[in-house]
């Protein structure tokens, strides 16, 4: 009896003694923003009982993947609203996943948006356009939440810029809808400021500036890119050269101030 009591005291005592260590690890996780939404009744209702058990067993990633694959199935069956619902649950489970925010917004803005535009049930073309724009707005809000959750990577800033550049400009590059292209430039600038951003991200910033109408800023940015060390930075230098030449002509830059003066190769 004495030994059993000793064992119980040993187990409880060390359990209590380890509480500060457990709290330290939990706090570190909170600081690093690990995990996702807590398993609430609403979440359990949304994902079903079996997946909720898997979630509680620590298989959060597997559950999120399963729901993502399921949402992919809804996409193939053109069940957009079900797909949207699953995507929302997935990003609730793994809000740190760039992939889910990126692909989710892409589905909304490109695939679902186009399906809404061309839906035969639309009474008029205008209704289709209106519904498409609603999905563009949903994609923008979705990505904005993604950026709030994953602010330290270039990816979502770039995708937001791309969304403004390609979809939210309402197929127009004149004021006032040009504002969308200026917003795109801002997001591309932010994305390009990350050291691990690929080379095309840096090129999208001056391109969007140009479309936004700020040719001077675009020219300055292309020049900044050009004057980087060509031996250390990988870039499509021929593209940058072409853009600089094109802008120098459009801006009528005096020959002696040009990066590529006329008459040279």
């Amino acid at each position, binding site marked *: 009896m004495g030994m059993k009591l000793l064992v119980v005291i040993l187990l409880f005592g060390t359990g209590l003694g380890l509480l500060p260590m457990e709290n330290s690890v939990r706090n570190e996780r909170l600081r690093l923003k*690990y995990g996702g939404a807590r398993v609430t009744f609403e979440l359990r209702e949304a994902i079903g009982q079996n997946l909720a058990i898997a979630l509680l067993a620590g298989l*959060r990633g597997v559950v999120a993947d399963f729901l993502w694959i399921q949402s992919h199935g809804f996409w193939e069956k053109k069940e957009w609203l079900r797909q949207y619902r699953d995507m929302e649950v997935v990003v609730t489970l793994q809000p740190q*996943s760039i992939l889910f925010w990126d692909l989710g917004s892409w589905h909304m803005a490109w695939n679902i948006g186009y399906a809404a535009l061309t839906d035969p049930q639309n009474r008029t073309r205008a209704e289709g356009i209106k519904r498409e724009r609603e999905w563009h707005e949903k994609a923008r809000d979705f990505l904005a939440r993604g950026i709030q959750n994953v602010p330290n990577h270039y990816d979502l800033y770039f995708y937001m810029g791309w969304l403004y550049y390609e979809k939210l400009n309402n197929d127009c590059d004149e004021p006032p809808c040009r504002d969308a292209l200026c917003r795109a430039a801002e997001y591309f600038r932010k994305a390009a400021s990350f050291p691990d951003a690929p080379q095309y991200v840096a090129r999208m910033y001056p391109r969007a500036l140009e479309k936004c109408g700020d040719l001077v800023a675009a020219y300055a940015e292309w020049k900044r890119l050009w004057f980087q060390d060509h031996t250390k930075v*990988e870039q499509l230098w021929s593209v940058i050269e072409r853009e600089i030449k094109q802008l120098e002509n459009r801006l009528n830059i005096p020959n002696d101030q040009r990066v590529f003066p006329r008459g040279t190769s």
Partner: protein
Amino acid sequence: MTEIAVGAAPLSRERVGFSLNRVGVIAANTLTEAVRQKVFNFFLIIGLVFIGSASFFAQFTFGEQMKFIKDTCLGVISVISTLIAIVGTAQLLPNEVENRTIYTILAKPVRRFEFLLGKFLGSLFLLGVSILAMSLLFGAVLFIKEQGMIRELHEQYGQNLPAAEVADMNQQIQEVTRSAFDVDLVKALLAETAKATLVAAITLLISTFSTSLVFNVIVPFMIFVAGMLRGAAAEVWGGHKLLMALLAVVPDFGLFSIADEINLGNPVPWGHIGEVIAYGLVRTLIIVIAAHLIFSRREI
């Protein structure tokens, strides 16, 4: 166990010192016996089949495929290693008692602690072998997928590329390789090993006072489930000090779940992993001591 008997002097147990050699022999025998068990092979084969089939996520983007493969494989390693830890350890002591081999061993100059430790280490070797086998296959799946994706990229870009496009392609190839062989995956495997070790220790503790195999399997499993829920309990009942103090006896298994964060590309510092592993080892040590205290007084 005959190696122990050969040349052993008829000393009383009190006069026999602790011997790592005897522990090693018992551990090696335990591993041999465990590897021959059908249930171990069944779980291991199931695990290997699941991991191998993870490479069939073919119709998704490159990023999706890599994430699905890693999530699935690490999930399978987590589940199978936990099951092997429970089932492999649960039958160690009951089998020895049922087959009466424990009498033969303990009649020799072998301390009970040596016997218990040898059994536990044998169980850990079994876990190590299982996790290593699954990890190697996981690595092979990633390698095959990586090579397939690089081949696809080469096909997409074609031959005789201008220098600029070569740079673009190389950047994408580097991205594929970096994504496939993330060194941080080792951290996830270490955390899973620490978790399985703790589960094995709990099962050993239960089996020191219970002779029922079913009980030895179900109770550690329930403790594991309770341990997985401790994090959620701490969030909900964090204010109830007494309740949390009572729950402290159950290890928080949720602390070992870092595979998701690694797959998402979140930074997982070595210091954090070290703290989690240290937590697991301290818990394991205490539980093995508790198991020894019970087993040393148990009437066999």
